[in-house]
């Protein structure tokens, strides 16, 4: 059995979470609230130390920003902070609408960056990987053909502007079969990942805490 207080604490919290399998109880609630508090604090500290200080505080204290030199650079650094402070107007009933301005900046930058990236990563690159030369010189080519047909059938299933009838309907049916195999495989993977985590926790309790297994 371990004499490390850290291991005892981790084991206690592990059992607190597992107690939810019986029913919701104060031990589970304790661990849950502890987890929320610790992870919020952890996230805040990591964000401040890894992001905020290097990209905001350090350039300000040096008086220059490597991205844009001179006074303009410092202004461009302070400006988003001023916008960010406007978010706190959300706590005032009267001035809550002012928080929309920083949110608009976040959404604007986010959507502006998302449009080309979504098209590039999710459509163009997927098409590039799907439409490949097929020479039937190896089994790999047969697989590539299967993937190309499968992708077409899957997309047809998602296309609702035409009624799923005849050849189109047949391809849509094949599409849903392909999608179901995909979902089944993903589900199988997810189950195995969760079971693997469960085994990890049981090994922690049996080996690191109780020392029952070697």
């Amino acid at each position, binding site marked *: 059995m371990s004499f490390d207080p850290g291991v005892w*604490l*981790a084991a206690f*919290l592990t059992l607190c979470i*597992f107690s939810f*399998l019986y029913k919701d109880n104060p031990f589970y609630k304790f661990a849950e609230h*502890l987890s929320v*508090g610790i992870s*919020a*604090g*952890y996230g805040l500290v*990591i*964000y*401040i130390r890894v*992001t905020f200080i290097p990209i905001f505080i350090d350039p300000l204290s040096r008086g220059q920003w490597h991205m*844009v030199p001179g006074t303009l650079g410092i202004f*461009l*650094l302070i*400006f*988003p*902070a001023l*916008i*960010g402070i406007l*978010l706190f107007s959300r706590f005032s009933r009267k001035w809550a*609408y002012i928080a*929309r*301005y920083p*949110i*608009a900046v976040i*959404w*604007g*930058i*986010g*959507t*502006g*960056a998302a*449009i*080309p990236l979504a098209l590039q*990563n*999710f*459509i163009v690159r*997927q098409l590039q*990987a799907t439409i490949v030369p097929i020479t039937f010189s190896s089994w790999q080519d047969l*697989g590539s053909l*299967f*993937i190309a047909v*499968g*992708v077409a059938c*899957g*997309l047809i299933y998602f296309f609702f502007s035409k009624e799923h009838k005849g050849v189109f309907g047949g391809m849509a049916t094949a599409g849903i079969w392909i999608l*179901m*195999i*995909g979902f*089944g*495989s993903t*589900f*199988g993977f997810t*189950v195995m990942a*969760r*079971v693997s985590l*469960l085994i990890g926790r049981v090994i922690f309790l049996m080996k690191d805490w109780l020392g029952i297994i070697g």
Partner: protein
Amino acid sequence: MKRQLPIAITFVCAFILTLQYFIPHRSFEIMYEVSNIWLQIIGIFALSMGILSIILVHYDKIKFKKENWGFSVVLLASLFGMTTVGLIDTESGPVFVWLYNNILAPISATLFALLAFFIASAAYRAFRARTVIATILLLASIIVMMGRVPIGSIISFGVFPKLADILINYPNVAAKRAIFMGVGMGAAATALKVMLGIERSYMGSD
């Protein structure tokens, strides 16, 4: 001012950011990088606001002794404790790392491990082979699961692992690509709606 200005700001930011992708000039690259840093700087205030919101909600529960207010004390104490330790210590300091390793890591791992039980009960309900597609889903998941454990290989004389590989490398890839393309089109269309001011839910109500 209350609704039109945010829409205009969103449009201008989104339009410039979309445009920069198609203009391979150094100044536009700098603009892209600067805008990313802007997002991160605004992000710290957004995160602070979220944490302040948690504090206010739980302070309220403690102040008025609402149901389960004791757990709010635990939450606030752990939040302040972890933040204080992280700011006094460093992010790789011994106390901060000890708290992470012995509190956050085991709770997170156990919460995900707990899902193994719930996923099993969900699977029982979802996988009852009532239709052809439910049967396909069931078979695919069983083959993948059995193909990933030693006993699956032993009882099938090595067939399950091979079948699992085929399923993962071909039909699964085809399904994922079809879904990715749908996601890409959906994401681009939604982003375009936000940019043009058609989608305004992010502004909340007046």
